[in-house]
Structures are given as C-alpha cells and as structure tokens.
C-alpha cells in the first residue's frame, strides 16, 4: 500500500514537472532588416487563408503590427478587409516617402459572424484590452461604442489624408456623434422601391407611363399614396392576390425608419435624447393599418420573419407589384432565383426601381435610407495615424469599385461617378443617384431601444391587434418606461 502510494505521488510530481517544463521557450530576436509579414485571413470559422506580403523595414525602423476585423459574406464582400491588405504597400510607400521609419504589417480577421455576435465580440475584446486596431461595422454601432469609449475620435486627423476628400459628403453624417467623427465610410447602399413592369401594364398602364415611373417618383409626382392606390387597384382587379400589392421586409430593420422620416418625423434633436414624434408615427401606423387590415394591399402576417419565402416569392416580380427592398437584393435575386430565365437581363426587362415615393401628408419629398459600414479605429490602437493611413489607401476608387461591383453595394467616392469600371456596372451606376435622397439611422446609444418600441407599433397595426392610436400609446409607454429622460415625446 505504502509503496503504491509513494509511487503514485512520485509519478504525479514527475508528470507535473514535465508539464511545466513543456512551456515554450522564447528566443530573443533582433528586428531583421527585411522581414516577411504573414497576413492571416480567416474566411470561415475553420478555413484560414494566408497571404504573404513583403515589407521592407529600414535599419533602426519599427514594424507596427495592425489587426483589422471585418464581417463579410464570402466571397462577394471580402473586399472589406482584403482592400486593407491591398493598401499595405501604398501605405508603407507613403511612410517611406515621408521619411518615417515605421512600417505597417497587417493581420486581418474576416468571417461572416452574426451582427449581434460580431458586435458583442468587439465589446468583450475591448473590455479585455484585446480589441483589433481597425473594425469595420455598421455606423449605428458608433452610438454605443463611442459612448463606451471604445473608439478613437478622428475628427482632427481626417484632414491629414487627402484621399478622404473624395468621400461623398452626405456619407460623413453617418460617422458623427456629439459633433465628432468616429469612422470612415466603407460602403453604402440604397433601399429603393422596385416595381413590376408587366403587372403595371396588365393594370392598363401604357409603356410610357411604366418607363417614366422612376422619374415621376423622383420628381415627387407619383407619391406613396399613389403607390398604395395602384396596389389596391391591382388587388381589386385580381391582377395580384390579396396581400400582394406591396411588400416590405419581413422583420425589423433599418427600413422602417424612413417611413417615419417620410411623414416628417424627426429622431435627433439638440440633446442626446431621441425624439418620438407621435403625429408622424401615427401617420405611419395609419398607413400600415389601412394597407394590411382594410385594403388587403399587404398581408397582415407579412412580418413573420421568413426571409427565404420573401426572397423567392418576390424574385420574379410576377406576383407582387411593389417591393421595398435593398440594392443588394438585386444581385441576390438574379444569381439565386433567376438564372434559368435570363438572370440580370430578366430583371432589367421586367423590373424598375425608384426612390421611395414621397408622402403627400409628410415631407412631400422622395426618400431612401443608407446604412453605410464604416472603418473605426479602436481607442486601444497604439498607432491610430498608421491605421488611418492604411484606411486612406483603401479608400480609393480602384479598390472600392472592385468591392462595390462584387458585392452589389454603392460607391462612396465622388470620383466613382465617372470612373469607367464603376459606370460600366449598369445597376450600380443607375442606383448611385439614389444617394441624393438618402437618410441615415441615428448614431445613438438609445437607438436600439427606440427602434424596438417603434417596431412593436408596426407589428401591432399590421396584425390588427391594435388600432393606430392604441399603437402610438403603446410605443410611448414602452419608450418612457425603457428610456425615461432619454426620449422626448412630441
């Protein structure tokens, strides 16, 4: 017994010692004159691509390691981080030209995580002191992250990089919070009204009327109310099934905010508190109640969250007359559902697009909404100037156009409007003017709560559970309960 006990004890001690001594040894390495920088790129959770970039570091110089984190659906959107990789050479050349001895070595982490997980990951990493230097994410996250102190204020640094002067001016609004700028626009899109040309013709419209619809919408002649009347007529005449006159997305999202903007609603005021304009919201809810519960224009259960059904059902434009969707859906429709009927050509032949029509009882102007992604620099980044330099070299028409064309997003640079590779992408160049009508989500830490409450009202009236007036009262109650002084009810 005794000898067994001691044998076990001795064995345990020996194993423990072996385990301890297995720690990796560190060898001191002098900074080499020329070194190979490994760029590790994670495409999927398990797939990792490696790209090697040669970086010359002058004697006595410093290689600065920068980590960039992007979310992208492979392969179309991978330009988000890949453009930064492509910009490393130009950035280091600029440093060499300026006589700066530092050189950038870049590591990118890119995958297709869920937005919620992606956002939480950055928050946890920031809290642990391990945040990436650059993060590419939705601009509305500035509301939380800048407030929490996770981002570097780059307002005064932007002017040092001439490339940023080419960014379309209206997009900067999306990067601002508290009068400061916290990011650089990476992409943009628009959310147009698509319409089925064959169904309009079936309704008795002449070719001229159909073809001029986009211009009439842009001029404010064909309004939101006209669209609903047309859709109702199509339902009454049996050209479309009841509930298929006009469709919006099947779940919460940025789109519903432009409904509120279109009726004259404001969300940001003088203070940090968000505004809820009851009159504007009531108009939105009345319109939706009327469309879903009275006129059979949209299905009362349209907000069922079923995207697969929604995408497939709308793809051919032979069943639904008007669809409020995003510009990126264009590529998704023709690549996933229409390859056997002619792909993109089918869409150009049968589908038109225009800004979201003006509401007569609202602003009277057509609208749309852009939700740009922005590159942001972590407050933990030790060399924000280098991070920004790298972003500036990725914010050029050559790189951004490749990304935009591949991914179906709009350009973000003024110079893209007459840049041949961009203009030859027909859909992109036709939809770029939509940015003229664009609006944004607010950058505010209270936006998410505001949006959840406002969306409750939309669900309530469409499903017929509440009248528009009751819905407004419910939303006010929810907002006051959850946001307190941080919401102003008008």
């Amino acid at each position: 017994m005794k000898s067994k006990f001691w044998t076990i004890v001795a064995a345990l001690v020996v194993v423990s010692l072996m385990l301890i001594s297995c720690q990796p040894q560190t060898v001191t390495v002098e900074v080499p004159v020329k070194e190979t920088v490994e760029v590790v790129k994670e495409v999927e959770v398990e797939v990792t691509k490696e790209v090697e970039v040669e970086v010359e570091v002058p004697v006595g110089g410093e290689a600065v390691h920068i980590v960039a984190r992007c979310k992208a659906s492979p392969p179309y959107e991978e330009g988000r981080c890949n453009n930064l990789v492509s910009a490393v050479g130009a950035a280091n050349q600029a440093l060499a030209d300026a006589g700066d001895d530092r050189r950038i070595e870049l590591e990118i982490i890119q995958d297709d995580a869920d937005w919620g997980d992606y956002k939480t990951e950055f928050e946890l990493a920031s809290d642990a002191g391990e945040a990436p230097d650059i993060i590419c994410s939705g601009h509305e996250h500035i509301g939380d992250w800048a407030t929490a102190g996770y981002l570097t204020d780059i307002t005064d640094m932007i002017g040092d990089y001439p490339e940023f002067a080419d960014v379309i001016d209206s997009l900067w609004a999306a990067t601002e919070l508290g009068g400061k700028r916290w990011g650089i626009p990476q992409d943009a899109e628009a959310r147009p009204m698509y319409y089925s040309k064959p169904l309009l013709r079936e309704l008795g419209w002449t070719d001229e009327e159909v073809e001029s619809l986009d211009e009439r919408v842009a001029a404010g002649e064909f309004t939101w109310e006209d669209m609903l009347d047309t859709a109702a007529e199509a339902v009454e005449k049996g050209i479309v099934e009841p509930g298929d006159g006009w469709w919006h997305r099947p779940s919460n999202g940025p789109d519903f905010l432009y409904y509120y903007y279109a009726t004259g609603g404001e969300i940001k005021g003088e203070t940090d508190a968000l505004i809820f304009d009851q009159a504007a919201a009531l108009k939105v809810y009345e319109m939706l109640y009327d469309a879903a519960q009275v006129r059979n224009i949209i299905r009362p259960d349209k907000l069922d969250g079923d995207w697969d059904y929604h995408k497939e059902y709308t793809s051919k434009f032979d069943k639904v007359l008007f669809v409020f969707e995003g510009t990126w859906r264009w590529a998704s429709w023709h690549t996933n559902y229409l390859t056997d009927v002619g792909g993109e050509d089918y869409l150009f032949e049968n589908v038109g697009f225009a800004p979201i029509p003006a509401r007569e009882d609202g602003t009277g102007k057509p609208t749309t909404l852009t939700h740009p992604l922005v590159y942001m620099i972590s407050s933990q980044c030790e060399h924000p100037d280098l991070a920004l330099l790298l972003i500036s070299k990725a914010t050029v028409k050559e790189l951004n156009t490749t990304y935009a064309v591949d991914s179906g997003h709009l350009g973000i640079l003024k110079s893209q409007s007459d840049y041949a590779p961009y203009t030859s992408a027909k859909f992109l160049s036709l939809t770029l003017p939509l940015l003229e009508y664009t609006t944004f989500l607010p950058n505010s830490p209270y936006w998410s709560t505001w949006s959840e409450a406002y969306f409750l009202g939309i669900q309530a009236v469409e499903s017929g559970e509440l009248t528009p007036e009751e819905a407004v009262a419910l939303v006010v109650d929810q907002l006051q309960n959850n946001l307190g002084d941080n919401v102003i009810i008008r």
Partner: protein
Amino acid sequence: MSSTDQSTTSGPKLSGYKIGIPGAVLAIVCFFLPWIAFIVEDMPFASLTGSQIASGITINTNEGVKLLHGSMLNYLIPLVGIVVLMQAFFAYRRGHVSRWDGLGTIGLGVVTLLIVWGQFPETSQVAERARITLQFQYGIIGVYLALAALIIAGVLNVRAATKRDPSFGATLGAWGFMSPATFLVVVFFFIPAIILFILSMTNLSSSNFSEPWHFIGFENFRRMFNDTFFPKIMGNTFKYVILTLGFFNVGLALVLALLTSNIDRRAGFLFRVIWLLPRITPSVVYIVMWRRFTQLPPYGIINWFLGMAGVEHQPYWLNEMPWLFVILVNGFVGASFGMIIFTSAIEAIPKDYITAAKVDGASTWNVIRDIILPLLRWPLLFVTSYQTLSLLVSFEYILLLTQGGPGLFTTEVWALTSYKRALFTYFGTNQWGQGAAWGLILVIIAITASIVYLRVFQFNELVQEPKIDVL
C-alpha cells in the same frame, strides 16, 4: 521509502511534517531567494523575487519601462510557509497532528496553487516581453514544487489524524463523496445566481460596458413590472409550461411508456427509438423541418396534403395556430425523457404483483390505476419537477420557430424575454442589467416551484427506507 516506513512505525505523530517542513521551507526559499533580473529591451531594469513573478506584475514598455502594480499576493506564499512552520511547531509541542493540521494545510496549498495558476498566463506574458522566460520557468517550477510538497504534507497529516480518530475518517469520506456535487452546485448555480442578482441591480449595457458597474437599485425591476406586456408574457409562460408538461412531457410520456411496455418488447423498443428522434435531431434542423411543414403553398407539407384533399384554406400554419405548434414542437422533444424514465420504472415493477392482480380478476385499467401508477409516484415527481424547471428556462425552439410572434408577444415566454433583453436585439444593443432582472424572477419562480413540488409529493416520505425492511 524507508523514511515513510519509519514515520508510520514511530506513530502517527508527525508523519506529515517529514515532508511538510521541507515543503514550508522550500516555499519560503523559492519565493524569497531567486532574484531574477528583468531585462527589458536589452536594458537591465529590475530584480524581482519568485513571489513577485508568481503573483502578477505588469510591465508597460511603451511609456518607458514601468512597474504598474505589485500585489498583496506577493506575501501570500511566504505567509503560507510561515503558517505551516508554526503548525509544525505546535504539533510537535502537542505531540500529535490534529485533523485541522491536515485539512488546513491542504486547503492553504490548493487555494495558493489556484491563485498562482490563475496568475500564470499574465506573468508568463510579462516574462516573455522582458525576455526572461527561462529563469521564469525555473521560478515557476520551484513554486509548483513547494505547493505540491505542502499538499502532500497535508494529505499525510490527514492520514495520521484518521488513524488517531477513525470517526474522522468516516466524516471525511462522507464529505469526500459529496464534494464533487457540492462543488458543481456552488460553481454552476449559487455563484451564477448571486452574480445574476448583483447584475440585475446595474444598468450594464453595450454603451457602458467599459465602465465600472453603475448600481441603479431596483430600477430594472420597476421597468419590468411596468412593462405593458408583463402580464401577457407571464401568462404565456404558465400556458406554455402547463400545457406542454400536461399533454406531452408527462401525459404523452406516460401513455407511451404504458403502451410500449405492454406490447411486444422489440416493437416497444422500436417505437421508443422513433420517439427519441426529435430529441436527437439538432434543434435548428428540427425547426427548419417544422417551418417547412407549416409553410404556405407550394412549399408547406401540411398544405400540400390539404391541397390534395381539395381544402381551399391553406394558410401559413405557424401564424394561424402558433401555440399549437409551439407546444407540439417542444412536446415531441420533451415526451421522450419521461417515456424512458417511466418505462424503466414500469419494467422494474415485480411481475408477481401484476400476475396476482390478474388472477384476482383485475382488468388492465385496474392494474394501471391500482398497481402501476402508485408505484410510479417517485418517477412522476422527478419528471414533473425536472421538466417544469426545464420548460421554464427553455426558449430556443420558440426563438427559432416564432421568435415570440406572430404579432405582439403572442408566444413570447419569460426566458425568451430575458434572452432578448440581454443579448438579442436587431441592432445589437445588449442590456445585460435588464436581462438579468428578468432572469432573476425566473430563478425565484423555479426555486418556489421546486419547494412546492417537494411538499406536495412529500419527498421525505418517498426517500424513507421501506417500512417492510425495517420490520
């Protein structure tokens, strides 16, 4: 080996300290003596002791070279050494080791080991940045050796104390058997429940996650009780738990167990395997199947059959009857658990009872009502209480199936609200404090339900020794 034999032949007196005293001395030496030179970026910077290495220091090389913090832990391990030496001294004076000499030494050793272990990654990073890895490893080996010696000494002391007082051994054995379960309950229930309670008093969210916690009292609870949908969600939760439990997790489970144990054994086995399929199917795949099942034409399978039967009304069934499907989807998964427990309990009933009853002319219904069901009281209590608690906190199938909809909170249950507040909004603003408040209510309901069940089913009577054996 001979020294150990010697220690036991000379009585249990000081056997532990054969190794305990060297261990204590080693601890003190290891932590005071190895003065390690820190060289940061080729510049000699500082000399530190093993205790400082083991207890966590941070060097910031960007703003020059700076020692950010030392720590109380610097003194921990030498202190342990001194305590053990003092113990040895008093034990020597007393002439024997007590149970606390043993347990105390083990406790001190294990706690210190955990602390050093927890600090290891950070200190090893510091050591790597300062390029002193090799010396650091020697230091760490010394630390672990000393702590191993201490723990072994404690074990030896416990053995010595057990020999002096065998009843101590029995007590120790009982605690030993209970300790894994106790450890798990403490780590995975009590500590999280306490953290949940503290969290529910804060306004922790995405926008203030980087700051220290702001305590806002019962504000989260005020908001929760004032929420327009509070009664609806509460009602939904009870509806969900009671209906799923009654019809499926207990009801159908019992029926399945009775049926499959009364038919041919192989056929019964086959049916039980079929009923296990929903449980072993990955939840996302399972829900995708259900969604397709209930989908509109031309995709939905139910509507496909209805179409063949010439039925005109072909809606999206998840929107038409959300509750039916929420309960079916959860119930089909839940029924298999009770089915297995009940079947094994039924199989364990001695056949003599049933044979005797049948000889007396009992019908199958009589056998079930008067013999099987009374003997299933214990498994019934277990399945009912366990499944109540499982259902109260389960929301994943509802999240995947309806997300709490359609419309306004139609199928939203308590756990889903808690999850949504804490982690699931479209725009990703997480409100952990608010979510914790909702979650805490669930903990309270669950504990209350457990107590009620234990009272109603008279748990104490069920676990008493059978009276027939006492006689």
